[in-house]
Protein backbone atom coordinates (compact mmCIF):
# COMPACT_ATOMS: atom_id res chain seq x y z
CA UNK A 1 0.00 0.00 0.00
CA UNK A 2 1.33 3.49 -0.77
CA UNK A 3 2.92 5.30 2.12
CA UNK A 4 3.42 8.73 0.51
CA UNK A 5 -0.02 9.63 1.80
CA UNK A 6 1.44 9.68 5.31
CA UNK A 7 4.15 12.25 4.53
CA UNK A 8 4.07 16.01 3.93
CA UNK A 9 5.73 17.50 0.84
CA UNK A 10 8.87 18.01 2.95
CA UNK A 11 8.90 14.40 4.16
CA UNK A 12 7.53 14.93 7.67
CA UNK A 13 4.96 12.57 9.14
CA UNK A 14 1.32 13.70 8.83
CA UNK A 15 -0.50 10.37 9.23
CA UNK A 16 0.93 7.21 10.74
CA UNK A 17 -0.51 4.28 8.85
CA UNK A 18 2.35 1.86 8.28
CA UNK A 19 6.11 1.67 8.80
CA UNK A 20 6.59 0.45 5.26
CA UNK A 21 8.02 3.17 3.03
CA UNK A 22 9.29 5.23 5.98
CA UNK A 23 13.02 5.96 6.02
CA UNK A 24 15.48 4.91 8.69
CA UNK A 25 15.87 8.59 9.61
CA UNK A 26 12.16 9.05 10.15
CA UNK A 27 11.83 5.87 12.24
CA UNK A 28 14.83 7.04 14.28
CA UNK A 29 13.19 10.44 14.75
CA UNK A 30 10.09 8.68 16.14
CA UNK A 31 12.28 6.71 18.57
CA UNK A 32 14.25 9.82 19.64
CA UNK A 33 11.07 11.82 20.20
CA UNK A 34 9.65 8.93 22.23
CA UNK A 35 12.81 8.92 24.38
CA UNK A 36 12.06 12.51 25.35
CA UNK A 37 8.49 11.56 26.24
CA UNK A 38 9.78 8.75 28.46
CA UNK A 39 11.58 11.42 30.49
CA UNK A 40 8.30 13.39 30.69
CA UNK A 41 6.62 10.28 32.14
CA UNK A 42 9.06 10.31 35.06
CA UNK A 43 8.19 13.84 36.23
CA UNK A 44 5.89 15.05 39.01
CA UNK A 45 3.48 16.30 36.39
CA UNK A 46 3.46 13.99 33.41
CA UNK A 47 1.53 16.22 31.03
CA UNK A 48 2.99 18.53 28.42
CA UNK A 49 0.87 21.23 26.75
CA UNK A 50 1.74 20.23 23.18
CA UNK A 51 -1.71 19.24 21.91
CA UNK A 52 -3.72 21.50 24.22
CA UNK A 53 -7.04 22.35 22.62
CA UNK A 54 -6.85 19.50 20.11
CA UNK A 55 -9.47 16.78 20.03
CA UNK A 56 -8.42 13.20 19.47
CA UNK A 57 -10.98 10.50 18.77
CA UNK A 58 -10.12 6.88 19.48
CA UNK A 59 -12.17 5.04 16.91
CA UNK A 60 -12.09 1.37 17.77
CA UNK A 61 -14.05 -0.91 15.46
CA UNK A 62 -12.34 -3.85 17.15
CA UNK A 63 -12.00 -4.64 20.84
CA UNK A 64 -8.78 -3.61 22.55
CA UNK A 65 -7.81 -2.77 26.10
CA UNK A 66 -4.08 -2.17 26.15
CA UNK A 67 -3.77 -0.33 22.84
CA UNK A 68 -6.81 1.84 23.40
CA UNK A 69 -5.88 2.76 26.95
CA UNK A 70 -2.26 3.59 26.07
CA UNK A 71 -3.48 5.76 23.18
CA UNK A 72 -5.89 7.46 25.56
CA UNK A 73 -3.20 8.01 28.17
CA UNK A 74 -0.79 9.28 25.52
CA UNK A 75 -3.34 11.79 24.21
CA UNK A 76 -4.12 12.98 27.74
CA UNK A 77 -0.43 13.40 28.54
CA UNK A 78 -0.22 15.64 25.47
CA UNK A 79 -3.09 17.67 27.00
CA UNK A 80 -5.51 16.81 24.17
CA UNK A 81 -9.19 16.18 24.71
CA UNK A 82 -9.98 12.53 24.12
CA UNK A 83 -13.13 10.83 22.97
CA UNK A 84 -13.36 7.05 22.93
CA UNK A 85 -15.75 5.42 20.51
CA UNK A 86 -16.10 1.67 20.45
CA UNK A 87 -18.09 0.43 17.53
CA UNK A 88 -19.28 -3.09 17.14
CA UNK A 89 -19.08 -4.20 13.55
CA UNK A 90 -21.40 -7.12 14.01
CA UNK A 91 -24.64 -5.40 12.99
CA UNK A 92 -23.69 -3.94 9.64
CA UNK A 93 -21.17 -5.04 7.10
CA UNK A 94 -17.75 -3.51 7.68
CA UNK A 95 -17.67 -1.41 4.51
CA UNK A 96 -21.01 0.16 5.25
CA UNK A 97 -20.29 1.01 8.84
CA UNK A 98 -16.96 2.55 7.88
CA UNK A 99 -18.35 4.91 5.25
CA UNK A 100 -21.35 5.76 7.44
CA UNK A 101 -18.99 6.47 10.26
CA UNK A 102 -16.82 8.73 8.09
CA UNK A 103 -19.66 11.13 7.47
CA UNK A 104 -20.18 11.40 11.19
CA UNK A 105 -16.49 12.00 11.72
CA UNK A 106 -16.51 14.93 9.35
CA UNK A 107 -19.22 16.50 11.47
CA UNK A 108 -17.26 16.15 14.70
CA UNK A 109 -14.51 18.61 13.68
CA UNK A 110 -11.83 16.55 15.39
CA UNK A 111 -8.08 16.93 14.85
CA UNK A 112 -7.02 13.30 14.91
CA UNK A 113 -8.50 9.86 14.62
CA UNK A 114 -6.82 6.81 16.08
CA UNK A 115 -8.34 3.95 14.13
CA UNK A 116 -8.48 0.23 14.78
CA UNK A 117 -10.40 -1.86 12.33
CA UNK A 118 -10.65 -5.56 11.46
CA UNK A 119 -10.32 -4.77 7.77
CA UNK A 120 -6.88 -4.30 6.22
CA UNK A 121 -6.46 -0.86 4.70
CA UNK A 122 -9.16 0.81 6.82
CA UNK A 123 -6.82 3.50 8.17
CA UNK A 124 -5.55 4.28 4.64
CA UNK A 125 -9.13 4.53 3.43
CA UNK A 126 -10.01 7.03 6.14
CA UNK A 127 -6.77 9.01 5.63
CA UNK A 128 -7.70 9.35 1.97
CA UNK A 129 -11.10 10.78 2.73
CA UNK A 130 -10.70 13.05 5.76
CA UNK A 131 -10.51 16.84 5.65
CA UNK A 132 -6.98 18.28 5.31
CA UNK A 133 -5.56 19.06 8.75
CA UNK A 134 -6.96 15.90 10.33
CA UNK A 135 -4.36 13.24 11.21
CA UNK A 136 -5.00 9.50 11.13
CA UNK A 137 -3.05 7.05 13.28
CA UNK A 138 -3.39 3.35 12.56
CA UNK A 139 -3.96 1.36 15.74
CA UNK A 140 -4.16 -1.92 13.84
CA UNK A 141 -5.92 -2.82 10.60
CA UNK A 142 -6.83 -6.44 9.89
CA UNK A 143 -3.78 -8.56 9.15
CA UNK A 144 -2.02 -5.62 7.54
CA UNK A 145 -0.21 -3.38 10.03
CA UNK A 146 0.08 -2.30 13.64
CA UNK A 147 2.79 0.32 13.32
CA UNK A 148 2.73 1.81 16.83
CA UNK A 149 3.16 -1.68 18.31
CA UNK A 150 6.13 -2.29 16.03
CA UNK A 151 7.70 1.05 16.97
CA UNK A 152 7.26 0.50 20.72
CA UNK A 153 9.00 -2.83 20.20
CA UNK A 154 11.83 -1.05 18.36
CA UNK A 155 12.09 1.45 21.22
CA UNK A 156 12.31 -1.41 23.73
CA UNK A 157 15.00 -3.18 21.67
CA UNK A 158 17.06 0.03 21.34
CA UNK A 159 16.68 0.69 25.07
CA UNK A 160 17.89 -2.77 26.05
CA UNK A 161 20.44 -3.40 23.31
CA UNK A 162 21.74 0.09 22.58
CA UNK A 163 21.44 -0.14 18.81
CA UNK A 164 20.12 -2.32 16.01
CA UNK A 165 23.42 -3.13 14.36
CA UNK A 166 24.47 -6.74 14.55
CA UNK A 167 21.28 -7.94 16.23
CA UNK A 168 19.63 -11.23 15.37
CA UNK A 169 15.90 -11.14 16.03
CA UNK A 170 13.46 -14.07 15.99
CA UNK A 171 9.69 -13.61 15.65
CA UNK A 172 7.90 -16.73 16.81
CA UNK A 173 4.34 -17.91 16.36
CA UNK A 174 1.28 -17.01 14.39
CA UNK A 175 2.86 -14.89 11.67
CA UNK A 176 -0.02 -15.51 9.26
CA UNK A 177 -2.62 -13.64 11.30
CA UNK A 178 -0.24 -11.11 12.78
CA UNK A 179 -0.29 -7.48 11.70
CA UNK A 180 2.27 -6.92 14.45
CA UNK A 181 4.77 -9.28 12.79
CA UNK A 182 4.43 -7.60 9.39
CA UNK A 183 5.13 -4.19 10.88
CA UNK A 184 7.98 -5.52 13.02
CA UNK A 185 9.74 -7.18 10.08
CA UNK A 186 9.64 -3.94 8.06
CA UNK A 187 10.81 -1.79 10.97
CA UNK A 188 13.63 -4.18 11.94
CA UNK A 189 14.96 -4.34 8.38
CA UNK A 190 14.70 -0.57 7.87
CA UNK A 191 16.54 0.07 11.14
CA UNK A 192 19.27 -2.29 10.03
CA UNK A 193 19.36 -5.38 12.25
CA UNK A 194 21.68 -8.14 11.14
CA UNK A 195 19.04 -10.83 10.69
CA UNK A 196 15.29 -11.31 11.10
CA UNK A 197 14.05 -14.87 11.53
CA UNK A 198 10.50 -16.10 11.70
CA UNK A 199 9.77 -19.39 13.42
CA UNK A 200 6.41 -21.10 12.91
CA UNK A 201 4.72 -24.13 11.39
CA UNK A 202 4.02 -23.77 7.67
CA UNK A 203 0.29 -23.47 8.34
CA UNK A 204 0.89 -20.23 10.29
CA UNK A 205 3.22 -18.67 7.73
CA UNK A 206 2.09 -16.44 4.86
CA UNK A 207 3.38 -17.28 1.40
CA UNK A 208 6.45 -15.51 -0.04
CA UNK A 209 7.57 -14.36 3.38
CA UNK A 210 11.22 -14.44 2.29
CA UNK A 211 10.54 -11.47 0.02
CA UNK A 212 10.24 -9.33 3.18
CA UNK A 213 13.84 -10.17 4.02
CA UNK A 214 13.47 -12.84 6.67
CA UNK A 215 14.85 -16.34 7.23
CA UNK A 216 12.14 -18.91 7.80
CA UNK A 217 12.51 -21.72 10.37
CA UNK A 218 10.01 -24.45 11.17
CA UNK A 219 11.85 -25.66 14.25
CA UNK A 220 12.08 -23.49 17.35
CA UNK A 221 15.30 -25.19 18.53
CA UNK A 222 17.10 -24.35 15.29
CA UNK A 223 15.77 -20.83 14.97
CA UNK A 224 16.67 -19.73 18.49
CA UNK A 225 20.42 -20.34 18.17
CA UNK A 226 22.47 -17.11 18.56
CA UNK A 227 19.39 -14.92 18.92
CA UNK A 228 19.58 -11.53 20.73
CA UNK A 229 15.87 -10.68 20.73
CA UNK A 230 12.99 -13.16 20.99
CA UNK A 231 9.61 -11.78 19.96
CA UNK A 232 6.72 -14.08 20.83
CA UNK A 233 3.37 -13.59 19.15
CA UNK A 234 0.01 -14.39 20.61
CA UNK A 235 -1.78 -17.39 19.19
CA UNK A 236 -4.76 -15.53 17.73
CA UNK A 237 -7.53 -17.91 18.61
CA UNK A 238 -10.23 -15.48 17.43
CA UNK A 239 -8.69 -15.22 13.97
CA UNK A 240 -8.05 -18.91 13.57
CA UNK A 241 -10.29 -20.30 10.86
CA UNK A 242 -10.11 -23.99 10.13
CA UNK A 243 -7.74 -26.48 11.64
CA UNK A 244 -4.39 -24.77 11.24
CA UNK A 245 -3.10 -26.48 14.37
CA UNK A 246 -3.64 -29.96 15.78
CA UNK A 247 -4.14 -28.57 19.30
CA UNK A 248 -2.90 -25.89 21.67
CA UNK A 249 -1.02 -28.50 23.70
CA UNK A 250 0.74 -29.70 20.58
CA UNK A 251 1.59 -26.11 19.67
CA UNK A 252 3.04 -25.46 23.12
CA UNK A 253 5.15 -28.58 22.86
CA UNK A 254 6.66 -27.49 19.55
CA UNK A 255 6.64 -23.69 19.64
CA UNK A 256 6.04 -22.67 23.26
CA UNK A 257 8.95 -20.68 24.71
CA UNK A 258 10.09 -22.49 27.84
CA UNK A 259 13.06 -21.76 30.12
CA UNK A 260 14.80 -24.77 28.62
CA UNK A 261 14.40 -23.58 25.03
CA UNK A 262 15.31 -20.00 25.84
CA UNK A 263 18.77 -21.28 26.83
CA UNK A 264 19.44 -21.87 23.12
CA UNK A 265 19.37 -18.11 22.49
CA UNK A 266 22.19 -15.81 23.63
CA UNK A 267 22.55 -15.59 27.41
CA UNK A 268 21.56 -11.90 27.39
CA UNK A 269 18.66 -12.34 24.96
CA UNK A 270 15.52 -10.37 25.78
CA UNK A 271 12.01 -11.82 25.50
CA UNK A 272 9.18 -9.68 24.14
CA UNK A 273 5.45 -10.23 23.66
CA UNK A 274 2.89 -7.71 22.40
CA UNK A 275 0.24 -9.06 24.78
CA UNK A 276 -2.18 -10.30 25.80
CA UNK A 277 -0.21 -13.39 26.79
CA UNK A 278 -1.63 -16.90 26.55
CA UNK A 279 0.38 -18.46 29.36
CA UNK A 280 1.10 -22.10 28.69
CA UNK A 281 0.11 -21.77 25.03
CA UNK A 282 2.91 -19.75 23.43
CA UNK A 283 5.01 -18.93 26.46
CA UNK A 284 5.80 -20.51 29.83
CA UNK A 285 4.74 -18.37 32.79
CA UNK A 286 8.24 -18.43 34.26
CA UNK A 287 9.65 -17.01 31.02
CA UNK A 288 6.98 -14.30 30.75
CA UNK A 289 7.74 -13.20 34.33
CA UNK A 290 11.47 -13.99 34.20
CA UNK A 291 14.41 -11.61 34.26
CA UNK A 292 14.91 -11.77 30.48
CA UNK A 293 11.33 -10.64 29.90
CA UNK A 294 10.81 -6.99 28.90
CA UNK A 295 7.06 -7.34 28.36
CA UNK A 296 6.09 -4.65 30.87
CA UNK A 297 8.72 -2.26 29.49
CA UNK A 298 6.93 -2.65 26.17
CA UNK A 299 3.68 -1.42 27.71
CA UNK A 300 5.36 1.63 29.29
CA UNK A 301 7.15 2.41 26.04
CA UNK A 302 3.83 2.17 24.22
CA UNK A 303 2.66 5.40 25.84
CA UNK A 304 5.83 7.29 24.82
CA UNK A 305 5.74 5.98 21.24
CA UNK A 306 2.10 6.95 20.86
CA UNK A 307 2.82 10.42 22.25
CA UNK A 308 5.64 10.77 19.73
CA UNK A 309 3.62 9.62 16.75
CA UNK A 310 0.58 11.72 17.65
CA UNK A 311 2.57 14.91 18.18
CA UNK A 312 4.62 14.36 15.02
CA UNK A 313 1.52 13.67 12.89
CA UNK A 314 -0.26 16.73 14.31
CA UNK A 315 2.84 18.80 13.64
CA UNK A 316 2.96 17.54 10.03
CA UNK A 317 -0.70 18.37 9.52
CA UNK A 318 -0.15 21.92 10.78
CA UNK A 319 2.82 22.29 8.45
CA UNK A 320 0.81 21.01 5.49
CA UNK A 321 -2.15 23.28 6.22
CA UNK A 322 0.15 26.32 6.57
CA UNK A 323 1.96 25.42 3.34
CA UNK A 324 -1.32 24.98 1.47
CA UNK A 325 -2.53 28.37 2.73
CA UNK A 326 0.73 30.01 1.56
CA UNK A 327 0.38 28.31 -1.81
CA UNK A 328 -3.16 29.63 -2.18
CA UNK A 329 -2.11 33.14 -1.19
CA UNK A 330 0.38 33.25 -4.06
Amino acid at each position, binding site marked *: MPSSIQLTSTGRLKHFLTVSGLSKDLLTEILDTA*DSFIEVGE*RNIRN*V*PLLRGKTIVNLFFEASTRTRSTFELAAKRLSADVLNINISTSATSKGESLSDMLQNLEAMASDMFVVRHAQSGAAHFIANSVTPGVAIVNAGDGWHAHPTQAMLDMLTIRQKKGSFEGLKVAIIGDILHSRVARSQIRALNTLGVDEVRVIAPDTLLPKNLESLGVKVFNHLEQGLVDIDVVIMLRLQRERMQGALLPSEQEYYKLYGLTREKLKLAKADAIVMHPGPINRGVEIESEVADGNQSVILDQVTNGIAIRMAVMSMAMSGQSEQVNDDAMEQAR
Partner: protein
Amino acid sequence: MPNKLNIQSMISSMATALEKYLKQHGIKSFELVGIRTGGVWVAHAVQKHMNNTQTLGELDISFYRDDFTQVGLNPKVSPSKLPFSPEDKHIILFDDVLMSGRTVRAAMNELFDYGRPASITLAVLVDLGRRELPIYPTIVGSELTLTKNEHIKLVGPDNLHFDIQRIDQSTP
Protein backbone atom coordinates in the same frame (compact mmCIF):
# COMPACT_ATOMS: atom_id res chain seq x y z
CA MET B 1 29.43 46.50 16.84
CA PRO B 2 28.25 42.92 17.34
CA ASN B 3 31.55 41.48 16.18
CA LYS B 4 33.31 43.17 19.03
CA LEU B 5 31.30 41.25 21.63
CA ASN B 6 33.86 39.79 23.98
CA ILE B 7 32.14 36.70 25.27
CA GLN B 8 34.79 35.88 27.85
CA SER B 9 34.44 39.25 29.54
CA MET B 10 30.64 39.00 29.32
CA ILE B 11 30.75 35.61 31.03
CA SER B 12 33.06 36.92 33.71
CA SER B 13 30.85 39.91 34.41
CA MET B 14 27.81 37.61 34.57
CA ALA B 15 29.59 35.43 37.12
CA THR B 16 30.51 38.47 39.24
CA ALA B 17 26.97 39.84 39.01
CA LEU B 18 25.46 36.49 39.92
CA GLU B 19 27.71 36.05 42.96
CA LYS B 20 26.82 39.55 44.09
CA TYR B 21 23.12 38.88 43.56
CA LEU B 22 23.21 35.62 45.51
CA LYS B 23 25.05 37.31 48.38
CA GLN B 24 22.66 40.27 48.45
CA HIS B 25 19.66 37.96 48.59
CA GLY B 26 21.19 35.60 51.12
CA ILE B 27 20.91 32.64 48.74
CA LYS B 28 23.41 29.99 49.80
CA SER B 29 21.93 26.99 48.09
CA PHE B 30 20.80 27.15 44.48
CA GLU B 31 20.57 25.10 41.28
CA LEU B 32 21.73 26.03 37.79
CA VAL B 33 19.56 25.26 34.77
CA GLY B 34 20.40 25.92 31.12
CA ILE B 35 17.98 26.06 28.20
CA ARG B 36 19.32 23.91 25.37
CA THR B 37 21.55 24.35 23.61
CA GLY B 38 23.07 27.82 23.99
CA GLY B 39 21.80 28.34 27.53
CA VAL B 40 23.56 25.18 28.70
CA TRP B 41 26.87 26.41 27.24
CA VAL B 42 26.46 29.78 28.96
CA ALA B 43 25.56 28.12 32.27
CA HIS B 44 28.67 25.93 32.03
CA ALA B 45 30.92 28.90 31.28
CA VAL B 46 29.53 31.04 34.11
CA GLN B 47 29.69 28.11 36.50
CA LYS B 48 33.36 27.58 35.66
CA HIS B 49 34.09 31.22 36.46
CA MET B 50 32.40 30.79 39.84
CA ASN B 51 34.40 27.60 40.59
CA ASN B 52 31.07 25.86 40.98
CA THR B 53 30.91 22.11 40.26
CA GLN B 54 27.20 21.38 40.72
CA THR B 55 25.53 19.21 38.07
CA LEU B 56 23.58 21.44 35.72
CA GLY B 57 19.96 20.95 34.81
CA GLU B 58 19.25 21.00 31.06
CA LEU B 59 15.87 21.87 29.59
CA ASP B 60 14.65 21.06 26.09
CA ILE B 61 11.56 23.23 25.78
CA SER B 62 10.28 21.65 22.52
CA PHE B 63 7.16 20.24 24.18
CA TYR B 64 6.30 23.61 25.76
CA ARG B 65 6.58 25.98 22.81
CA ASP B 66 3.57 28.20 22.12
CA ASP B 67 4.09 28.13 18.34
CA PHE B 68 3.54 24.38 17.85
CA THR B 69 0.67 24.92 15.42
CA GLN B 70 2.77 27.37 13.36
CA VAL B 71 6.17 25.68 13.28
CA GLY B 72 5.46 22.15 14.48
CA LEU B 73 7.64 19.88 16.55
CA ASN B 74 11.42 20.16 16.61
CA PRO B 75 12.70 17.03 14.82
CA LYS B 76 15.75 16.92 17.08
CA VAL B 77 14.15 16.98 20.50
CA SER B 78 16.18 15.34 23.28
CA PRO B 79 15.14 14.52 26.85
CA SER B 80 15.37 17.27 29.46
CA LYS B 81 17.72 16.40 32.31
CA LEU B 82 17.01 17.71 35.76
CA PRO B 83 19.25 15.86 38.24
CA PHE B 84 17.42 17.48 41.18
CA SER B 85 13.88 18.42 42.12
CA PRO B 86 13.32 22.17 41.76
CA GLU B 87 10.86 22.03 44.67
CA ASP B 88 11.67 24.92 47.07
CA LYS B 89 15.00 25.54 45.32
CA HIS B 90 16.42 28.84 44.09
CA ILE B 91 16.87 28.29 40.37
CA ILE B 92 19.23 30.29 38.17
CA LEU B 93 17.90 29.91 34.63
CA PHE B 94 20.34 30.54 31.77
CA ASP B 95 19.77 31.28 28.11
CA ASP B 96 22.08 32.62 25.43
CA VAL B 97 19.82 35.15 23.71
CA LEU B 98 16.74 36.84 25.15
CA MET B 99 14.28 38.46 22.80
CA SER B 100 10.51 37.88 22.85
CA GLY B 101 10.62 36.08 26.21
CA ARG B 102 8.61 33.15 24.87
CA THR B 103 11.39 30.61 25.32
CA VAL B 104 11.81 31.66 28.96
CA ARG B 105 8.07 31.38 29.51
CA ALA B 106 8.14 27.84 28.07
CA ALA B 107 11.13 26.96 30.25
CA MET B 108 9.39 28.24 33.38
CA ASN B 109 6.28 26.22 32.52
CA GLU B 110 8.44 23.14 32.12
CA LEU B 111 10.30 23.76 35.41
CA PHE B 112 7.01 23.96 37.28
CA ASP B 113 6.05 20.52 35.98
CA TYR B 114 9.00 19.14 37.94
CA GLY B 115 8.11 21.03 41.11
CA ARG B 116 7.53 24.47 42.61
CA PRO B 117 10.79 26.43 42.86
CA ALA B 118 11.38 28.93 45.67
CA SER B 119 12.53 31.44 43.04
CA ILE B 120 13.72 31.67 39.45
CA THR B 121 16.39 34.17 38.44
CA LEU B 122 16.99 34.74 34.75
CA ALA B 123 20.54 35.09 33.41
CA VAL B 124 21.19 35.74 29.71
CA LEU B 125 24.32 36.34 27.69
CA VAL B 126 22.69 38.83 25.33
CA ASP B 127 19.48 40.82 25.66
CA LEU B 128 18.14 41.98 22.30
CA GLY B 129 15.10 43.81 23.68
CA ARG B 130 11.98 43.51 21.48
CA ARG B 131 10.09 41.77 24.30
CA GLU B 132 6.61 40.36 23.70
CA LEU B 133 6.05 39.17 27.28
CA PRO B 134 6.67 40.77 30.69
CA ILE B 135 9.91 38.85 31.29
CA TYR B 136 13.18 40.58 32.29
CA PRO B 137 16.62 39.21 33.09
CA THR B 138 18.41 39.87 36.38
CA ILE B 139 21.88 38.95 35.08
CA VAL B 140 22.83 40.21 31.60
CA GLY B 141 26.12 39.77 29.73
CA SER B 142 25.38 42.53 27.25
CA GLU B 143 22.54 44.39 25.62
CA LEU B 144 22.47 44.53 21.87
CA THR B 145 20.31 46.13 19.21
CA LEU B 146 19.90 44.33 15.92
CA THR B 147 17.94 45.33 12.86
CA LYS B 148 14.89 43.24 12.01
CA ASN B 149 16.73 41.25 9.34
CA GLU B 150 19.75 40.44 11.48
CA HIS B 151 19.82 37.14 13.32
CA ILE B 152 22.21 36.16 16.07
CA LYS B 153 23.27 32.65 17.03
CA LEU B 154 25.66 31.42 19.69
CA VAL B 155 28.18 28.90 18.35
CA GLY B 156 29.86 26.46 20.76
CA PRO B 157 30.42 24.67 23.03
CA ASP B 158 34.16 25.32 22.58
CA ASN B 159 35.32 28.85 21.84
CA LEU B 160 31.90 30.39 22.33
CA HIS B 161 31.25 33.08 19.74
CA PHE B 162 28.33 34.77 18.06
CA ASP B 163 27.38 34.29 14.45
CA ILE B 164 25.34 37.21 13.11
CA GLN B 165 23.56 36.71 9.82
CA ARG B 166 21.85 39.26 7.67
CA ILE B 167 18.81 37.93 5.84
CA ASP B 168 17.75 40.06 2.89
CA GLN B 169 14.01 40.44 2.81
CA SER B 170 13.63 40.30 -0.94
CA THR B 171 10.59 38.04 -0.71
CA PRO B 172 7.44 39.55 0.81
